[in-house]
């Protein structure tokens, strides 16, 4: 690791630049991108990765709320939006690579800040392992479709093969992230366009099959699917909502791209609105068409069948599209691959910030001198995500399902803290203007309360051994155990760090602050 000199070390007379604006160092050129409206929408959709998200989340959501998935999708967007407003205000006021960690530390002090950072890192590491797991399934499916041999798709069920291939995926994604390899804008537009078109084709084909009477379990579409009050009880609603938080996760980046979008000041707002409209329409169309095609029963292709619930496109692509099913495999594969890269960035940058402020060992703050990426933090994230996946694959038969449910819980945890951090940080300016009242007090406060309720409800309900996929350890639901192990591990590491690195925990590095 490079030694850290004083950043404002005096330069000697002979070396001091006269025209230097910044500590004797000149700089020039574009640091930020100039992303237009379309570019911002593409980044937004690419980060949400709708093809991957839906195949992973649709089954678990159906198992909670049955046919009311469309209602949950519409409802789940609300807390996400409310929290995203607070996130945007914080990002505008204190742009920092540590995001939730730094903001929560500023607002509530080091301990809560540390746990917010931990929640973010844990959530992204959970999703990394899930992403790679989904990618493995679809890789084998794509190969079997090309080779015309359905048995190949079954190889993915072998835990040893599965884990090895998954680790290879992870290695590839780490390599790409570490070296900061970029796809061209054009290719990225094509990939996202392809993903959206395939999802459209997939749902329209399902509806056509329903109309032709070829559907597996044709279910007539009803208005009650859009009515959240038709959900059986509050626990199911909470569980469904915490899953739908996951499906919009990543959308918030379009709101925070305020600094670098070109064109008018309205671009980021428009991009965020348009991308969310596209995403919500897609989600509604697919959930409605697939429920209508396959029903929510537990038959072979029913969305209520636990055997297919953790990866529904994997099971349904063939019956719906026949020979064109390969398109769905390719869309999910490219979707998870590009999402793997953008997802890698966030735990790595948060760990980097935690290292930088002394909340974790200094090594985490290391930046690769060649690629300018958080090298050490990237590798640590990859190793932890891989180890997590490997262990889970052997502990649970429904690893993908359980990680998605635990993931929803983690997102509620750290997003909730972030929302409250926004409210508290801006406490002195709440009533300065109508705008500030809504964006720094009301919206994030309501969003934060909803997320906390979801978090607590999910946590309590998940103690039931039948919760989620029904995996359990020692008579307690696996999702609960996962959630608690992740959080308590965080607490343990935090205490260990507090002993080794007291300065941060005494509030000497990042002091508490508030906007004024």
């Amino acid at each position, binding site marked *: 690791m490079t030694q850290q000199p004083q950043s404002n070390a005096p330069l000697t007379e002979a070396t001091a630049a006269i025209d230097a604006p910044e500590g004797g160092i000149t*700089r020039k050129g574009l640091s930020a991108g100039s992303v237009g409206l379309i570019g911002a929408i593409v980044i937004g959709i690419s980060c949400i990765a709708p093809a991957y998200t839906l195949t992973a989340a649709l089954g678990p959501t159906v198992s909670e709320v049955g046919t009311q998935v469309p209602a949950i999708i519409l409802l789940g967007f609300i807390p996400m939006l409310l929290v995203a407003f607070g996130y945007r205000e914080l990002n505008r006021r204190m742009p920092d690579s540590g995001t939730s960690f730094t903001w929560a530390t500023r607002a509530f002090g080091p301990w809560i800040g540390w746990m917010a950072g931990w929640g973010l890192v844990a959530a992204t590491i959970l999703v990394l392992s899930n992403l790679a797991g989904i990618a493995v399934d679809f890789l084998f499916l794509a190969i079997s479709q090309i080779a015309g041999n359905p048995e190949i798709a079954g190889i993915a069920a072998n835990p040893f093969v599965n884990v090895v291939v998954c680790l290879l995926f992870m290695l590839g994604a780490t390599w790409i992230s570490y070296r900061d390899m970029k796809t061209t804008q054009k290719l990225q537009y094509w990939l996202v366009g392809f993903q959206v078109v395939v999802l459209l084709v997939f749902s329209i084909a399902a509806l056509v099959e329903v109309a032709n009477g070829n559907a597996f379990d044709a279910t007539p579409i009803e208005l009650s699917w859009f009515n959240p009050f038709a959900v059986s009880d509050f626990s199911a609603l909470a569980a469904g909502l915490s899953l739908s938080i996951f499906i919009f996760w990543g959308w918030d980046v379009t709101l925070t791209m305020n600094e670098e979008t070109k064109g008018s000041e309205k671009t980021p707002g428009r991009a965020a609105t348009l991308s969310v409209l596209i995403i919500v329409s897609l989600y509604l169309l697919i959930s409605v068409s697939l429920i209508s095609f396959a029903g929510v029963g537990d038959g072979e292709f029913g969305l209520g069948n636990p055997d297919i619930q953790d990866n529904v496109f994997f099971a349904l692509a063939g019956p719906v599209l026949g020979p064109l099913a390969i398109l769905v495999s390719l869309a999910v594969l490219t979707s998870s691959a590009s999402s793997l890269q953008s997802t890698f960035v966030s735990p790595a940058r948060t760990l980097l910030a935690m290292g930088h402020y002394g909340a974790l060992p200094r090594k985490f703050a290391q930046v690769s001198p060649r690629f300018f990426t958080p090298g050490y933090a990237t590798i640590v994230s990859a190793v932890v995500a891989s180890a997590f996946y490997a262990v889970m694959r052997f502990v649970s038969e429904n690893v993908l399902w359980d990680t998605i449910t635990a993931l929803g819980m983690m997102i509620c945890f750290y997003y909730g803290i972030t929302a409250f951090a926004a409210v508290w940080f801006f406490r002195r300016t709440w009533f300065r203007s109508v705008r500030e009242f809504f964006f720094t007090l009301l919206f994030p406060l309501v969003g934060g309360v909803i997320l906390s309720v979801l978090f607590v409800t999910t946590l309590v309900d998940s103690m039931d051994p039948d919760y989620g996929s029904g995996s359990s350890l020692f008579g307690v639901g696996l999702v609960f155990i996962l959630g608690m192990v992740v959080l308590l591990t965080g607490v343990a590491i935090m205490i260990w760090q507090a002993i080794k690195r007291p300065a941060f925990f005494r509030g000497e590095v990042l002091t508490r602050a508030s906007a004024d």
Partner: protein
Amino acid sequence: MSDVTIVVGYTANESGADALALANRIATAAEGLLEVVMVLPSEAHNARVPVDQGYLRYLREQSREWLTEASAHLGADVASKLHIRYAESFAEGLINAAHEFDATLIVVGAAGGGRRAHARVGSVANELLHSSDVPVVLAPAGARDVPVSQGITRITACVGTRPGADAQIEAATLLARATRAPLRLLSLVPIDLPAGLDEHLAELTSAAHAEQVLQDAHRGLPEGTDATVEIATGSTIEAAVQALDWHEGEVVLVGSSRLAAPRRLFLGSTAAKMLRELPVPMIVVPRTLHGKTSQ
């Protein structure tokens, strides 16, 4: 103070330390100006990962620290400035900086960390060699261990029969004068002949030819240039390079390949082979020089 301006492409690793140490040594010998440039990736065309202002600021801070720390290793008697530039690639950023500062030379570390002491061209240096219109100095791995006091003890210009030799001799003369180092004209002609030529005949004609080329080149040097001539011998470039004597403070100039577009660099096969064997830094000169060195 001479009008030699050196742009050094700095990275906070061994390769960057090699480049900086060599640039420092040349700038000290030539009493020139050192422009230390760090090139950060531009996010202008990033279409996958959302740009994070906080992280960009962190990188900027980190780069400032790196530059400030690196500048501490420069001698007090070298005039230097530190810069951060954003570009799509390292090579693009350096070439732009070289134009901005009207630089005489661009110095980079040759390899991304070669296994051997000699230079292997890394991807960054390679990209630069294919697109620069300013002479590029490749600092071999280990250049960081050569003290500044070593200075520049001799400039060797490899002279061929191909077009481009003029620009190269011009650059060599200028550098020799600026660093007050003696000049050695080296002919690689006997080894650099097309394959398939009758061996005896080739030897005869090429020896005579080499002599002729060197004489011409020598005569063409400006008044008062201290120059010696030498003809490389050996059956291969590798053998010839090994047979010659090299000072520790020596620098070798080679011309760009015939394949290069006018005013652009391109490392020819001969030069590439030499680079693998040379124990000293190599400068690759474009066919026609850009900027003030061609005046």
